[in-house]
């Protein structure tokens, strides 16, 4: 019966060709697929040894995906204005079915992502996977770490409660001490930096945390920072491939 199905036009238009289990086809499945082609067609034996890396990088990426998906769902219910932000969060917690679940998943995934990013970083360091030719990838990784932290920071403002506002106040107050760009930093005032035109002002969209800050952080958190993160992640994964695949112990590599 299944064979009959395979002969129909509908089936043939969806599945353009049949699959014959040859080595070539196996390779093509990976290489021809838009999602999978970043993966190597073949992996070295040591790559299947979970205990070397514990898949920390992969878990981090998985958490990033979870964050993206839950984040998009949250975006349906949240308005980034001072008038509505807190209310919408409350609405999500009280009214929306499974709202608390989505929000909590997003929150837990964020914390877990920071944790796994750290663990990944420790693993990379402890396995010497920053050594040539992988130095550049380490740098990219550090940038990704910074982006992760920035994403956490910007997301923290979004509930718009006392904790958010004061945490961001303290954080952005640090920005005013930036050299050259902050109005309280070394050489800043000499360059004409004032409270209303320095880098802190740019961050906050004002001289203190207010509605513009919220909007700014929201756009940063949902579009700007994820875009940059995606670009850097692409580079990071591609470099892993190009630099010889997933790391493993020296001895195992010889097998």
């Amino acid at each position, binding site marked *: 019966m299944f064979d009959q199905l395979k002969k129909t036009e509908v089936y043939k238009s969806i599945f353009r060709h049949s699959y014959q289990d040859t080595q070539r086809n196996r390779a093509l499945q990976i290489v021809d697929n838009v999602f999978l082609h970043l993966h190597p067609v073949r992996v070295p*034996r*040591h790559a*299947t*040894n979970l205990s070397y890396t514990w898949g920390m990088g992969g878990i981090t990426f998985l958490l990033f995906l979870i964050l993206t998906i839950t984040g998009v769902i949250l975006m349906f219910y949240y308005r980034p204005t*001072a*008038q509505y932000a807190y*209310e919408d969060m*409350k*609405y999500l917690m*009280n*009214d929306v*079915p*499974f709202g*608390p*679940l989505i929000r909590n998943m997003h929150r837990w995934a964020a914390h877990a992502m920071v944790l796994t990013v750290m663990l990944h970083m420790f693993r990379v360091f402890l396995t010497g996977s920053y050594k040539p030719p992988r130095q550049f990838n380490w740098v990219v990784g550090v940038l990704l770490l910074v982006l992760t932290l920035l994403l956490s920071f910007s997301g923290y403002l979004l509930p718009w*409660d*006392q*904790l958010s506002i004061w945490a961001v106040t303290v954080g952005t107050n640090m920005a005013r001490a930036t050299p050259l760009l902050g109005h309280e930093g070394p050489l800043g005032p000499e360059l004409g930096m004032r409270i209303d035109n320095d880098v802190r002002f740019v961050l906050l969209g004002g001289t203190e945390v207010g*509605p513009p800050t919220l909007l700014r952080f929201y756009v940063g958190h949902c579009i700007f920072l994820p875009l940059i993160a995606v670009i850097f992640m692409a580079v990071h994964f591609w470099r892993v491939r190009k630099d010889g695949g997933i790391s493993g112990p020296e001895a195992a590599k010889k097998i």
Partner: protein
Amino acid sequence: MPEEKPNIPVEQKDYSKLYLIFSAILFLGTAWAVWDEVKVRRPWKDYQEGYQQLLVEHLDSLRAAAESELDSATVVDLNAQRDKAVADLQSEEYQEAVSQKNVLLKDLDLATREWRFARSRSDAAYYSYQKAMLEGGDAASAKAEVQKHEDDIADYAKEIESLNAKIAELDVTINKYNDQVEKLNAEITGMFATINAHTLKLERTREMPIAIRQVMLNDYEFTPFQEIKARIDRCQTCHAGWAEPLMADAPQPYTQHPLPELLSKHNPESFGCTPCHRGQGPALTAGFAHGDDDHYWETPILRGIDVYATCNSCHVNETVLKYAAPFTKAKQIILDSGCNGCHNIKGFEEAPKIGPPLNSLPKKVQADWLFRWVRNPKDYNEHTRMPNFKLSNEEAEAITAFLMDVGKDAEFQFTRSRGSYAGGSSARGKLLFESVGCQACHTVGDEQTVRTNRALTFDIAPELTRVGSKVSADWMFDWIKNPRHYNPETRMPSLRLTDDEARNIVAYLNTLKDTRTFERTALDLNNPDKIKFGDKLVRDYGCFGCHAIKGTENEGKVSVDLSDFGRKKYEQMDFGNTHELSHDDTTEYQENSDGTVSVKHSWAGWVYGKLKNPRLYETERIPQRMPVFTFNDEEIRLIRMFLTSMTKDVPVANYQHNFNKRQQEIEAGRRLTQYYNCIQCHEMEGRGGYILTKYEEEAMGPPKIFESQGAKVQEPWLHEFLQGPTTIRPWLDIRMPTFNLTDAEISTITKYFLGTSKQELMIRDYAATPIDSKYLAPGRQLFDAYQCAKCHPAGRVSSDEVSASDLAPNLTMAASRLKPEWILSWLHDPQALQPGTRMPAYFYEGKGPDESVFDGVETEQIKALRAHVWSLGRQRSTASK
């Protein structure tokens, strides 16, 4: 030695078990998440089901009770009757009538149709006739044709009429049968009415959907960013029985909300719940809704008497609320204690100073008494309102010197010669003191009735147990004869004492001495440095907050503004050297055995400690200036409840109470009557009347100012009375004092009485009230028949009628004193207007005892009596007959 595990090549390792375990964990986790969301986070579903069950049980038992009370014999009987009536419809008479009617109806149809055709034909003929007239044809025959048709129409009309008449006749019979059936059906339904009502309610309850119930208050309040926002309350989702009388005794959360009369003015469907109770409206679990689990929610639910705090969000300017006795009492304490003297408090900005002016003290007291008083007022009078500033001897000396200096040029002089007080009898004075009304405000010794009834730890007027050692007898005499001589703004009224009465009272008061001995302290009162130091102290401690002192008229409030104090975070409060009680502890304040104090570190704990001992949080570096009051636990809780209400977060104007001009005038009167302590003697708006329990019979004490006084007395009379009270009830020993009120004050009080009696706030002219002459003679007859004069004098009182005048007011006053419409309500039912009054009711079930006048009809007899009583006053004033 363990066996070597066979070395499986890494690419052939089978992780499927691991994947299975992890998938299972993920699956279970997801299943748990769904179950948690649907069940655990929605406890309100269980509550609603529980409520439904409880209500169904109640209704079931009610229905069962109604069913058992049903007289089944009657039902059977009625059913039988109804069946018989239905069977009667088959009777020959009825059937015959129906068939005849049907035949007639058919005939009627035909006749009507013919009539219509005839009309059409007539119209056509008329056209022909007109045409003939116009064209010069045969008009005559055309006209005859028209006439013929008109005749036909008339014939048919007659036939229709007669048919209708016949049908109507038949209808009488037919309806008789039908009506009988309907009547019996209605009776049977009536028997089951209660049961059906219960059944209907039961069905509705069973079908009640399990759903969230909420109230939305649009545009209710402002966010901190000045945006208007709504409030959403979902409390009724769990508290489903709030409006159900059957749930009055049910356990929480199903209990009915108490005070349905209060709820009818603040309907939760349009008011919500959180405006009064606070809490987190949109939350759907008890912990979050009440704020217990959501630690960041700034307005958790108010428990106990704190719930009355929110009344102040809308009723901030009012001091008496009918359904909020704790609120009323808290504001009474605030007003009486003069908190606004040092603190700016929302709603009390214009409240007057509560203490006497200190500008002529040398004429009143001795310096060493003043010194001891300033050092600790509670030592002289335990219940005085003045708090203890815990001054050192030097400070007290300095202040004494300052006050003596301020008062040295005072203009006050005794008008009578020294010693004019002498010669009174202290025994008679004591009797006078106890009967004429002094005790309503002043306590002496063991007589504690008024103080106990007032139920506050402080008195409104000084306790006189030691007054003989405080002031001279000269001063006492001058004072009680005319208090305004020494202090033009005093609240103490004049009791219109004769010189003899005053002497007796002075003789009595002079015997009340302070029997303790004090060590002599040398006071250096003329030292300019000490005087200057005293001045500085007075300005620092803010004595002018309660007392008018020359030179301090322009000083501001010496302490913090409390108008937003309710929102102060406890993290910003200084707990001094107190220890901390844990949050789980039920006590808030604890005095430890080692002399330290433990206080709960929360807003409520801090405030309790502060009110209990205002110097509690004093440290070496940070002194506290607030003086020490001696409030008891209840008073502290009430004041704390009031402070909870001090917040800038109030709803927008349309949700607030409409404090319009009328309300403002009534409130002004209310505050004035509290200011002059009218409420010590007279019960007003449900509070006061503290002296009344001393009298066994209500009629022997000061009358209660019910919410009918404004409807009772004429405004011009009231004005004169308040200016100079006259005797209305001669049997009373207690006297209404003369308060020396200004015209504006009398007008305020009049409006207050009128306002609380739901009258228009205006003065009417009663002189022109007409008397209907047809009532005069019957009125006189009834007056004699009902023997009113047995109790009410109706003219000048002669000496041998002494006992009659003892019983009731003289009726010649009525025409100038009472409102004419009030007299009617009074005669109808005196006990309703003044419960416990001696005046009996004459009319029973709309009839009077004497049936010869107006056939005993109550309304007419009352009008007649009123006319007669009204004429008594007129006779007197016109001095005729």
